[in-house]
């Protein structure tokens, strides 16, 4: 009969891919699955209980068996029971879930940082060493990796089911998520927030490599310039260095070692300098002006791509001194790039 090959194919497929759970490929997965099993158990139990009661009552009290209903008003005790017990279970789910939430979204201190830019309809990963990948992400195994993500246009959402992580990629704001891959292999990378026509095409592959392989990969796929070095170029080509050069006459604050420090703003408020802050000050300078400076900095809104901003942020992050800035200031006239770029793949720039 004609149907059988189709049926056969179907069965084969079924046997090949009848997994009920995605692979546990990240440090967090077991914890997520644990909660999942708990909740599944709760659901099964709850449904079974209701079903069993319905069945039992339907048989015991069907009209043939009990022709006349006996009136029961209700029972406070029972009401209390099925108010408190479900509530208790739900609260367990709440606490458990909350702990997990913070575990998933709080990166450890030693996490390495990779930038991800989402745009309709592709993922662009940018490694500090300047390696760029499209719809692909290479990460080392056994090393916490933090993704600092931003969208160039609409909401996207980066999801790696096998790592059990997902985070909205928001336009105009950095969002972060971290994971620690535990086994080599390639895994799906999805955009889960509907983002327009090619939404379902906005998928990629995460490749987990052993640390050695990862090093090799970094070497091979370098673009020659680290993010910080690109940032340094922008820094001079955009003329940032004409104010932020740490000289006495500078109209802007020196940026050397500013990252991670606490700044005092003109309105007296204290603020911690992180990626988000750096990005925001470039786009909305007057929102937070460092104490002792005038709000004269122009906005770069619309003049710089998110990639450019990432380069700049990365540059400022790793800026230990103003030495190279002043160098670029000098060489800027002669129109060439700054001297002696350190080997790519490392995130350090300028030695004092």
């Amino acid at each position, binding site marked *: 009969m004609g149907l059988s090959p189709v049926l056969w194919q179907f069965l084969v497929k079924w046997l090949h891919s009848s997994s009920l759970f995605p692979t546990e490929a990240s440090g967090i997965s077991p914890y997520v699955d644990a909660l999942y099993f708990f909740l599944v158990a709760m659901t099964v139990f709850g449904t079974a209980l209701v079903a069993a009661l319905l069945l039992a009552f339907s048989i015991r009290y069907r009209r043939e068996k009990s022709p006349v209903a006996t009136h029961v008003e209700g029972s406070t005790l029972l009401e209390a029971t099925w108010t408190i017990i479900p509530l208790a279970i739900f609260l367990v789910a709440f606490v458990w879930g909350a702990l997990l939430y913070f575990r998933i979204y709080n990166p450890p201190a030693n996490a390495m940082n990779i930038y991800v830019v989402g745009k309709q309809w592709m993922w662009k990963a940018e490694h500090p060493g300047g390696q760029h990948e499209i719809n692909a992400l290479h990460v080392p195994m056994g090393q916490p990796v933090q993704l600092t993500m931003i969208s160039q246009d609409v909401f996207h959402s980066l999801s790696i089911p096998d790592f059990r992580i997902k985070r909205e990629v928001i336009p105009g704001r950095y969002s972060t998520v971290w994971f620690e891959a535990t086994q080599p292999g390639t895994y799906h990378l999805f955009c889960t927030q509907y983002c327009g026509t090619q939404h379902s095409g906005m998928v990629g592959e995460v490749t987990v490599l052993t640390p050695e392989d990862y090093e090799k990969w970094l070497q091979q796929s370098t673009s020659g310039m680290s993010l910080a070095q690109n940032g340094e170029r922008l820094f001079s080509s955009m003329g940032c260095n004409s104010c932020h050069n740490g000289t006495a006459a500078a109209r802007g604050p020196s940026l050397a070692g500013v990252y991670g420090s606490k700044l005092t703003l003109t309105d007296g408020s204290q603020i911690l300098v992180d990626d988000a802050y750096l990005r925001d000050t470039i*786009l*909305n*300078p*007057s*929102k937070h002006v460092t104490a002792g400076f005038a*709000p*004269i*900095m*122009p*906005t770069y*809104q619309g003049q710089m791509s998110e990639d450019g901003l990432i380069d700049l942020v990365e540059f400022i992050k790793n800026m230990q001194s103003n030495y190279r800035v002043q160098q670029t200031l000098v060489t800027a006239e002669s129109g060439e790039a700054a001297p002696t770029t350190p080997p790519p793949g490392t995130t350090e720039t300028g030695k004092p």
Partner: protein
Amino acid sequence: MDNALASTGLTTQPAPDPHPHETAVHAEHEHVALPQHRHHFETEEQQREAGSFGMWLFLVTEIMFFGGMFFAYLLYRNWYYPAFAAASSQLSVPLGGTNTAILITSGFCMALGVWAAEVRRRKMLVVTLILTTLFGLAFLGIKYDEYHEKYELHHIPGNNFNVSQFVNPAAYGIKEEPLAPDMAQKTQIFFFLYFAMTGMHAVHLIIGIGLLFWLTWRAHRGDFSSGYVAPIENFGLYWHFIDIVWLFLFPLLYLINRHPLH
């Protein structure tokens, strides 16, 4: 009679006028005119209270409707205070103040109208309704003037929105701290909220004025001079509600920061 609704009433109660169905249908289709009693209400009291309760529920939805915009205002005002302050200083307090007074007055006339209807004075009712309408129109006129000015200054949000006046006030002879360019851009959000909120308010006014014409005509016809107050009363509620919205809009939009800090 009203105990028809009392939770305790157990007394049986034949419907006041069990129409034959045909007339019942007509009673339903004709406009709420005399006899204003609609067949499906037990008592006229019940009908009146149902009416005003319904009106109030509707006003509550209006609260939530404006609520969304009030929240947007609150949020962005906190984020971009300098822009909001500077932009708000470009609105004319004299005009805004006058408008507030005008609206309050028109509300006062409306209130008198309700009273006139209650005490069944047809002429007075008509006069107050006309006054209400006039004040309402005056408000809209002034509002139009303000909008027009904004239009000429290119302060209408959109593609040809122009911030130069805020970046460099001196050039326009305005004694204000100049805004940094990026902050000046945010004045657009203020003006959007200004137009959205006052615009939405104006729309409600226009609808109200439309209704006023209709009510005035019916009042003139004498519909409301025989103890049938509900339409006037409920419209009054609507009109006063618009006034009250404005009482919030005025300080929030016009008076953010009228004392430039030096």
